[in-house]
């Protein structure tokens, strides 16, 4: 084949109709407070992991909801499960448990190929 020196790029756009939201459904079922997030970023501001990495809990919450699983996988493991996020949330979202459940959901997904 001819050498072109470039190739087509995978779109970065969130394709909502194509994404798999099994992880979100799992969390909604087990931690219903997840629905209450208003994206204020309080969790992200206090997050210990965010001090040293590109972790953003606010963004992670949204990415889980949209089914952006590759990015969720990358970010979720940066969490140290310290729980400060849960203390500050003005809507009472148990963010620590959301992350915990996300990790659990992916383990389940990987093991049982849900």
């Amino acid at each position, binding site marked *: 084949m001819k050498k072109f020196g470039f190739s087509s790029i995978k779109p*970065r*756009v*969130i*394709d*909502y*109709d194509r994404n798999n939201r099994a992880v979100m459904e799992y969390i909604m079922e087990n931690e*219903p407070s997840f*629905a*209450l997030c*208003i*994206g204020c970023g309080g969790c992200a501001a206090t997050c210990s992991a965010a001090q040293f990495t590109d972790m953003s809990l*606010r*963004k992670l919450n*949204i*990415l889980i*909801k*949209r089914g*952006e699983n590759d990015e969720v996988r990358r970010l979720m493991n940066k969490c140290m499960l310290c729980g400060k996020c849960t203390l500050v949330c003005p*809507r009472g979202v148990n963010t620590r448990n959301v992350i915990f459940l996300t990790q659990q959901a992916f383990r389940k997904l990987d093991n049982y190929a849900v």
Partner: protein
Amino acid sequence: MPEQYDRHIIIVGAGAAGCTAAGQLAREGYRISLIEKENEPGGKVINWYQLFPDRRKSEEVLKYLRDEIDNPLINISLNTTVESIVKEDDRFIVTTTRGVLTAADAILMATGFDLFKPERKEEYGYGIYDDVITSVELEEKFHSGTVLTSKGVAPERVGIVHCVGSRDEKVGNFHCSKVCCVTAVKQAIEIREMLPGTEVFCFYMDMRMFGPYYEELYREAQEKWGVNFIRGKVSEASENIEGRLLVKVEDTLAGKPLKMQVDLLVLMIGMENSLSGKKIAGSLDLEIGINGFFSVLDNHYGNNQSNQAGVFFAGTCTAAMNITDTISHARASVVEIGRYLKSKEKRVVL
């Protein structure tokens, strides 16, 4: 017989503001001519099915407004349009499509608002794509008892676009129409209640839940009804080969563009000063603010007064307002009109 009976006030517009002020002024003994261009009083409240935040039936409020004007001192002219108002000394000559009403001592502009014409946001394809509708048209669907798409089926997914015609320099409107956010939340809940299998997404820039129980309603929408919220202004809608609508937006909290198909797209159209009100304003030299609404004399303590002595404002001709604030504003105008007319009496005595 009290002095007031001689005093004649012409109120332009029999919506929430006009009816409220007319009722109160009549109770205080003034003679009222209430002029309405439509064939019934009630204004835009008529369009609505249920009202936020408590989702009471709009008919209840409508009944209140109509009861207010059930007073022998109020003479209502329906299907009547004001053509001009001319001030001669301290009195106003009002010309309508039904002739000349003379000698008003004060004018109350309760001319209300026009709904933003969504065709002007061409990128949303209103009037082109079959399943792009307005918030008002959705209320009509609620009235009919069910929400169906143009194909006659229940939508699997509904998108609600906030700020259509508001906060948008492209259509010349810098202002926030205030009520659309909470209307969107209310309508999202109503859809979820009517069609539990339908997903609902609200696309917003800011959730402006300013009124009592609004934030609570927002929370209820998330907690109880599973309404989804995406922070981003919808950039465009288009139709795919199956006739579904493709919405493009940035999910700003994720920092990524997002595309999504919906079966029904509801545009939360904003408020603009009514064209008919602005026409009358020309003959009275009323000042118009940069937001297109009438300029009030003072934003803090003179928001019923105009730059023209004897001409007062009530309701959404001065700014976007909900029904509660419109009624309060109309009641306040009664105080201002009374004070003005009394000051005139004094001068006569002197």
